[in-house]
């Protein structure tokens, strides 16, 4: 769907993107991760043709990025805004038409979405009379009215209460079902694990890792297993620092060059193994680890 090669961008002396390559397959939810100031917003702005890259190429479905693609991209910026004095209906119509929809088609779709999201009674309301969550919903709908093939959401859950965040999450998954590609830029790692198929992480203008969630997690396995033993037959070595609780011994053990099976066999000689679970890092842990380790470079 989206292919980015060797993208570079600097603002005066400051580098925002350095040789960034990115491949986003069609129909996935793609998580774009990275701390503030890493270059995510710059990348998103370049894909949206708000600013130009210095060098590098971007292709959408095999075609070089051009103004014709505006109608195929939907963009929800992190800092979002609506015209306060404008009515919900007029506002949606304006945004939809700027994306190239005809008047009649735009009206039809707005009606459809207002019904679908139980917002039909808001259409004559001014944005300044809406709650923050309501305005966010209006904004979200405005982003997808033109049925973009590529949807770019920058921190889509910020500002939503849990109920509305859930609604938006369902909508994202529904759009994915329809084959729409979604790029999700966020700090909320739990939503990354729930929603994203693939991720890429950007730090200090460079892409530092990418792949499917599973691939990323695998590459960051610390090879530590959480173990619980019962009915101890032999005393456990002191360096394992096992803690006893109601006859159960809990501890963590690293592989130290063994395969998991070898470790398990070894553990079985001490007693009955009631838990043997690999420690899988959360995306959050990986995120923090990566950012910290690159800070020392």
């Amino acid at each position, binding site marked *: 769907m989206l292919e980015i090669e060797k993208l570079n961008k600097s603002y005066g002396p400051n580098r925002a993107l350095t040789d960034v390559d990115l491949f986003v397959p069609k129909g996935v939810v793609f998580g774009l991760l990275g701390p503030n100031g890493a270059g995510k917003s710059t990348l998103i702005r370049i894909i949206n043709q*708000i600013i*130009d890259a210095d060098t590098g190429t971007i292709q959408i479905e095999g075609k070089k990025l051009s103004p014709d693609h505006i109608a195929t991209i939907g963009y929800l*910026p992190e*800092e979002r805004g*609506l*015209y306060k004095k404008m009515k919900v209906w007029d506002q949606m119509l304006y*945004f939809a*038409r*700027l994306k190239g929809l005809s008047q009649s088609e735009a009206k039809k779709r707005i009606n459809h979405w207002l019904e679908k999201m139980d917002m039909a009674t808001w259409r004559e309301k001014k944005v300044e009379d809406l709650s923050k969550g309501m305005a966010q919903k209006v904004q979200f709908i405005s*982003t997808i009215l033109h049925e973009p093939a590529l949807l770019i959401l920058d921190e889509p859950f910020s500002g939503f209460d849990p109920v509305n965040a859930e609604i938006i999450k369902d909508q994202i998954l529904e759009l994915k079902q329809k084959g729409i590609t979604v790029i999700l830029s966020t700090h909320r790692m739990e939503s990354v694990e729930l929603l994203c198929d693939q991720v890429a992480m950007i730090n200090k203008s460079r892409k530092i890792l990418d792949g499917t969630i599973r691939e990323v997690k695998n590459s960051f396995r610390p090879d530590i297993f959480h173990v619980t033993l019962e009915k101890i037959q032999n005393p456990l070595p002191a360096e394992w620092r096992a803690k006893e609780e109601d006859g159960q011994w809990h501890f963590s053990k690293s592989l130290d060059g063994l395969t998991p099976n070898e470790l398990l066999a070894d553990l079985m000689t001490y007693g009955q193994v009631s838990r043997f679970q690999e420690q899988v890092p959360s995306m959050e842990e990986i995120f923090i680890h990566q950012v910290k380790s690159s800070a020392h470079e």
Partner: protein
Amino acid sequence: MNKIWLVIQREYLSRVKKKSFLLATLLTPLIFPAIMAIFVWIAVEEKENQALRIIEVVDENDLFFLESSEQYAFSFSDRTVEEAKELVKKGDRYGFLYIPKINLESPEGITYYGEENPNMNLISYLKSSLKKKIEDQRLYESGIDPEILSQIRTSVDVKAITLDEAGGERVSDATVNYAIGFLAGILIYMFIFIYGNQIMQGVIEEKSSRIVEILVSSLRPFQLMMGKIVGIAGVGLTQLLIWIVLIGTLTTVITGFLGMQLPQQQAMELAQGEVVQAVPDTEMGEILAVINGIDFFTLVSSFVFYFLGGYLLYGALFAGIGSAVESPSDAQQFMLPVTIPLIVAYMGLFVFVLQDPNSTTSFWLSIIPFTSPIAMMGRISYGVPFWELALSMGLLVLGFLATTWLAAKIYRIGILMHGTKPSYKTLWRWVKSSY
């Protein structure tokens, strides 16, 4: 192009549909006449209710006579200066004019005493009366009979005829031309400021509420900026059109109501060109002849041109400033380069252009694009050579192309910048950068 049109529509409709627009449009033409009417009424009331001010005059030459008016009465006496001052202090007299023995060739020492500062009218009346008397006295002393003197005094009125290049003649009148230049200049000045500010507010609104990020993902920043500028120009033109219609109908209704059909009839007859010779030599006839002599087509079309040209030139700058800042209060620091030329043009209109429309300063003010929209409107009713008008208009077009180019460079970067307060240096870097 289609997208610019959408922006123009939104900018236009969102303003024109507002109640405040309707209110301002309907009330403004009523406010000025209303304020004038109130002033006139107050002045009349004041005159009627004012107690007569008595001024004590002590003239040691026994020569002068001052004519009393509705406001002032002059009482001549032989009181001493101290006595007269005492009268003023007690409030028995409004003021006291002391004329010591003077040498007519160089009168000195004439003094006015008052409890309060005398107003300009009184002082100039006193001056001119005394001057006239002294001059008369000196003429008399040099042997000229006062009888002859009064016969010699004549009142002269110069009738001005402007010759145009085609060989035609038209009656012109400095006062009418002054009024037209004055009104047109002020209107353009106000329009640029009011609507320029609206552009700036609109840009700041879009930037600070972050709508702009969504907008520029759908269209080029330049399209957004031009759409806004043109849309708001439409609002201004609509307002102007409503005013013209409103004032036109109002004048017709009022003159009709007051039963003053005469000027209209005359105007119609004049327009038909049948009775030009027979225009009565009355004041009304003269004014009509003057109005008839004005080239309304040139006047109106150049008004619209300078109205739009000046607005576009400054409007782009207002948009550029709006894009660089995050709140209207931050905009103050960048307003100087916009307000200074506007104020120069405004002051120039009164100090140079309306005083002498053909002076060198007036010429340059009406040629330089930053001042020409206001200054040229002050000259146009006096008649301006074609080449000057063409040069001025051409430069104005170049001027607004240049400011639009400059503003667009600042705008496309400024609207996405948050958190930093730019300086002139930063703006210049934006202009140069290719982004």
